[in-house]
């Protein structure tokens, strides 16, 4: 934990889709990401 605060991941609306939560952990490639601002 940083002295200035936390770094957190936010996961929402999983809706019982365990493969989405877990299966992609099989990939070792960096995730696609978009920066919003």
């Amino acid at each position, binding site marked *: *934990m*940083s002295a*200035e*605060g*936390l*770094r*957190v*991941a*936010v*996961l*929402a*609306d*999983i*809706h*019982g*889709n*365990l*493969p*989405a*939560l*877990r*299966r*992609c*952990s*099989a*990939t*070792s490639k960096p*995730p*696609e*990401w*978009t*920066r*919003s*601002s």
Partner: protein
Amino acid sequence: MLRDVEAARVDAIVLNGDLADGPMPAQTLDRLEALGPRAMWVRGNTDRCLAAAFDGSFEPSGLPANAPEAYFNWCAARIGPAHRDRLASLPLSITLDIEGLGPVAFCHGTGRDDNEFILVDSPVAHYQAAFAALSEQTVVVGHTHMPFDRLADTRRVINPGSVGLPYGHAGAAWALLGPDVVLRRTGYDTMAAAATLLTSASDLPGIEFLAGNVRASVSDAEALSAFTESVLQQAAEH
């Protein structure tokens, strides 16, 4: 996705609601419990509905965007008392001090209602009313399954999108906070995942839609249109 989360070296993982209902409810809850104390749980409307269905006290919302009772009864029949107790104990919102952002509130719907729909194109007045009870200048929501990051009368409102049922894009959406806000998307084998969901929950009401959305997501324009009907109904109620 969880490997991506681990690689991001976060201090905590916020589970911002609507976690377990769907094709694999017990298995999903067990996996989330395995995250341990780093996981910070927030109540979504479907978490509340699933606990109520387990108790035999489910009451339909009357909103067209919400799933029917038969869906929750199917899910409730596949969880145990410990799962129910976890879901029934979740808070409406939590606040964490985030690096670079300060105090950030996390709630599933809005600050006043875990089932309130607020959209990227909702009027500023809607945002003002929905978050009036919160003092935090940054709020993270969920519920509508579409990522966004916008200002509304000086308050920053972020939606990380949906891990399991995204609209407008493929893959699993989530967000990283501190010191910046980064909306992230993790790809996975959606065809294989859809097959697994169909096998696991062939008689779940709505499974064809759920699995189909994993294979090819509903567009955000279509989802916005569908949600707007519920937004208008809620506006009359609030």
